[in-house]
């Protein structure tokens, strides 16, 4: 099967506003006035950002009334995460393929939360932790939406050969699902640290080279085990001890983190 993911015309584009925000952050030294000027042009996106910034997730319920305040109170990196998350989720809201979108995004949100909690627990200073977890499986939903026949073929192979989604994916496309995710995130010009973490968390030999990849691997393991939502392939295929060791965690600590993830996800039902 030849699927040309490299053909840009076949890849979904983010909205102009979201693109502008990503470009602004990629340049570094973000000016709040510039960010505000971009966001206020898109009232729909701005109101979504304010709604979530005022949710219990950030702990400022009802206190934030403008984008400027949101930038100052919840912080620029959180605004970046929100805009990117909303921008990507808006691209994939109606189901054309096999995936249940609501369950997919519930799973993705939980993975974002878990990655962030693990990063915080392990003192990894990485503002992109949440977005890395959230977008880890974006390749799957992109395939399901824009290449449903290919996704169907992957599912069929999986059923016929009774194997994991990842194996079937590799067999049909000669690329892993995380490679596809990394490809599309690179097309959208998301930070390299996010792309590298997603690529490396799928590589058991390289995983320990990146703290964020280790956190993501453990988050993936936890969310699948907790059975939150469904990303179309909720099987736990691997578990990396080097990733666990690199994070300085043990199994007891993992149980503690499971509790925090479960609690945070059930308290914040955005999806």
């Amino acid at each position, binding site marked *: 099967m030849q699927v040309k993911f490299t053909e840009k015309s076949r890849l979904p584009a983010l909205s102009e506003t979201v693109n502008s925000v990503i470009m602004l952050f990629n340049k570094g030294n973000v000016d709040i006035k510039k960010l505000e000027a971009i966001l206020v042009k898109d009232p729909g996106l701005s109101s979504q950002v304010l709604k979530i910034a005022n949710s219990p997730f950030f702990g400022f319920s009802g206190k934030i009334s403008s984008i400027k305040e949101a930038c100052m109170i919840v912080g620029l990196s959180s605004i970046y995460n929100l805009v990117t998350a909303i921008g990507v989720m808006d691209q994939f809201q109606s189901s054309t393929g096999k995936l249940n979108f609501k369950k997919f995004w519930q799973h993705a949100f939980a993975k974002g939360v878990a990655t962030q909690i693990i990063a915080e627990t392990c003192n990894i200073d990485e503002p992109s932790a949440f977005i890395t977890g959230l977008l880890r499986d974006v390749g799957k939903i992109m395939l399901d939406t824009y290449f449903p026949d290919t996704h169907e073929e992957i599912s069929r192979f999986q059923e016929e050969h009774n194997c994991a989604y990842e194996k079937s994916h590799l067999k049909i496309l000669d690329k892993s699902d995380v490679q596809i995710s990394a490809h599309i995130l690179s097309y959208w010009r998301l930070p390299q640290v996010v792309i590298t973490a997603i690529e490396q968390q799928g590589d058991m030999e390289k995983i320990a080279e990146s703290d964020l990849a280790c956190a993501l691997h453990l988050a993936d393991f936890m969310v699948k*085990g907790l059975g939150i939502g469904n990303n179309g392939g909720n099987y736990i295929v691997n*578990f990396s001890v080097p990733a666990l060791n690199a994070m300085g965690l043990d199994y007891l600590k993992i149980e503690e983190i499971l509790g925090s993830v479960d609690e945070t996800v059930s308290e914040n039902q955005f999806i």
Partner: protein
Amino acid sequence: MKELKKVMISDLCVGDRIVKPIMSNNMCIINEDTVLSEKMISGLSKYNVEEILIERKIKLAKQEVEKMKRDLFLQLKEQFKYYEGDVKRDLLIKVFLRHLLIKIMS
């Protein structure tokens, strides 16, 4: 007829089918160590025995916990059916099992 006074809840099966005839005579004895399922409590409350229940700490019956544990284990085993890692699968399952059980029972 069976001597109902001697019957302990812990000897009974869960559900109205057995609780009903016993409670119709209001002669059921609940000992201190008995743990009651929600279904049992619902069955018992129909027969005005709330005062007995108030004194008891409501917990799930041991047999129900065991059943839940088995179901969860099977569910987790299914999630690990393609597992290829070095760490023993059952060790990883245990990590989730305890957390999920506590979550259900709390």
